[in-house]
């Protein structure tokens, strides 16, 4: 019996969410009194996972898997879950994780709970807490199947060190055929993505026009933050669609979210509410964003933000 975590490596490196998934898996394994197995594909340094509690690290290395394929990967996870008699399989919420988790659940005929944000509150019955209604509520879900698949929400459980002596095993899975092939990837290199960012700086219609985005970009640069925007800003073509966040855009679960010239409409807030700390800068003290923010400045972005950038530069210079 075991708990299995799929610890995804991106271009060989683990992202924080992989460590979070392993930390979570460790907790569940302890609750069930079984051991934790981590599966990685083409990771440069699989041994890193031992620091978060993996007792056994299964390494798959295969050139064919350099380009991610959901169906093939889901099948490999199934092979390992069956081999390791896994009762629980934990998958993170990266875009790849979201893609493959439902496939894994069908392959294993397992009940699947996505958006899970906490360790099980009970293991018999097996109950986990999930985000629902775009973070406006949570639901406690009971999983009744023998094998359970958990999709872990990003930045929800946390990363916990748990140094373990791990055994490592090389595994050559059978590679099934996939009907989908990658033709090309279009990715801005060197840019922090909304998915990975600790800090997200977001601009709304209050910035008046795309020509003023230098302000948002400069602030993001000092903070090493990802750029985001409200829906009308992307609909107006001021910013690319990929920056649109909210209920119908990308979800944000960063440590810090800074909203500039964004009113805080319910659909906007629904998508960013999972962020730990929210800051608003808005001229209108009645803007709904002040009701959900932790810190706020009532003021004109064109005055406040340039000063904030300068002061943050000084702060960074002092604190690095």
């Amino acid at each position, binding site marked *: 019996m075991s708990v299995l975590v799929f610890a995804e490596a991106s271009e060989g490196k683990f992202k924080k969410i992989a460590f979070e998934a392993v930390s979570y898996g460790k907790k569940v394994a302890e609750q069930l009194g079984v051991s934790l197995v981590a599966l990685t594909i083409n990771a440069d340094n699989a041994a890193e996972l031992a620091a978060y509690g993996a007792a056994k690290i299964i390494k798959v290395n295969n050139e064919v898997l350099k380009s991610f394929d959901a169906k093939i990967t889901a099948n490999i996870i199934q092979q390992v879950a069956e081999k390791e008699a896994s009762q629980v399989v934990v998958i993170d919420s990266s*875009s790849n994780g*979201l*893609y493959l988790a439902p496939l894994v659940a069908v392959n294993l005929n397992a009940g*699947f709970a996505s958006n899970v944000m906490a360790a099980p509150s009970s293991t018999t019955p097996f109950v986990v*807490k999930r985000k629902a209604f775009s973070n406006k509520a949570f*639901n406690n879900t009971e999983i009744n199947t023998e094998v359970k698949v958990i999709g872990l929400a990003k930045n929800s459980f946390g990363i916990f060190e748990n140094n373990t002596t791990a055994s490592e095993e090389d595994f050559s899975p059978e590679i099934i055929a996939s009907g989908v*092939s990658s033709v090309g990837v279009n*990715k801005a290199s060197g840019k922090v993505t909304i998915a990975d960012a600790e800090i997200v700086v977001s601009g709304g219609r209050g910035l008046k026009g795309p020509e003023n985005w230098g302000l948002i970009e400069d602030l993001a640069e000092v903070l090493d933050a990802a750029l985001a925007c409200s829906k009308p800003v992307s609909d107006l073509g001021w910013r690319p669609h990929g920056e649109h966040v909210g209920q119908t855009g990308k979800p944000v679960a960063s440590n810090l979210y800074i909203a500039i010239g964004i009113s805080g409409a319910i659909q906007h807030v629904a998508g960013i509410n999972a962020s730990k700390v929210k800051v608003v800068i808005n001229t209108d003290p009645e803007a709904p964003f002040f009701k959900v923010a932790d810190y706020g400045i009532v003021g004109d972005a064109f005055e406040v933000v340039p000063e904030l950038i300068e002061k943050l530069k000084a702060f960074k210079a002092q604190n690095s």
Partner: protein
Amino acid sequence: MKILVCISHVPDTTSKINFTDNNSAFDTTGVQYVINPYDEFALSRAMWFKEKQGATVTVITVGNATTEPTLRKCLAIGADDAIRINTEALDGFQVAKELAEVAKANAYDLILTGRESIDYNGAMVPGMLAALLDFNFINACVGVEIESGAVTASKEIDGGTETLATTLPAVIAGQKGLVEEKDLRIPNMRGIMMARKKPLAIVEPQTIEVATKAINFEKPAEKSACKLVDASNIDGLIDLLHNEAKVI
């Protein structure tokens, strides 16, 4: 091409989220239901295929009779017919299994869905449906073209997009980009009149052992008030973010 569009009937984005029966059920009092916003992109793209390339478009939902106005709206937008699987599903796996059964019986070439529904945000059904049918699957799709069975799709990935090639039959789960926001279809008067006469079939559910169920709901704890910092005190904000919130 035979297209099936899966429609989720969800509370309007401005709905107040409350629960009844000891927090075990969603309180539908006063809640307006709409087509799941992601599904609107899927349906609008299906209509594009119908008009530009020739296709039949069937819409389907799993739900009780209260979901019918949502299906009628899809018919008014231009879908040819609708199917309602008559059950209130308890989880995404059940929805996927019900849909798969109907899909198998009707041999669709393309199944379009939204990336997730905005109520439970499960993002489970499209992938599960594809796996159950053993169809090719593309998630988070932001653009799709089909030429004689060959599919070229653009998918959102962390930090960019990826172009994928596949073949029909396929399940494609999408979002804005399938069509642009301005190209979303809305019903017109003629469509609404015609929708009344279009077929809406009711299919009885199978017996499915339920894998997961929501036992109760909670609302987030009340937030403490926002700390206001004066616009002339930027140092104060930096200090709070560094020393109190510890996020910079």
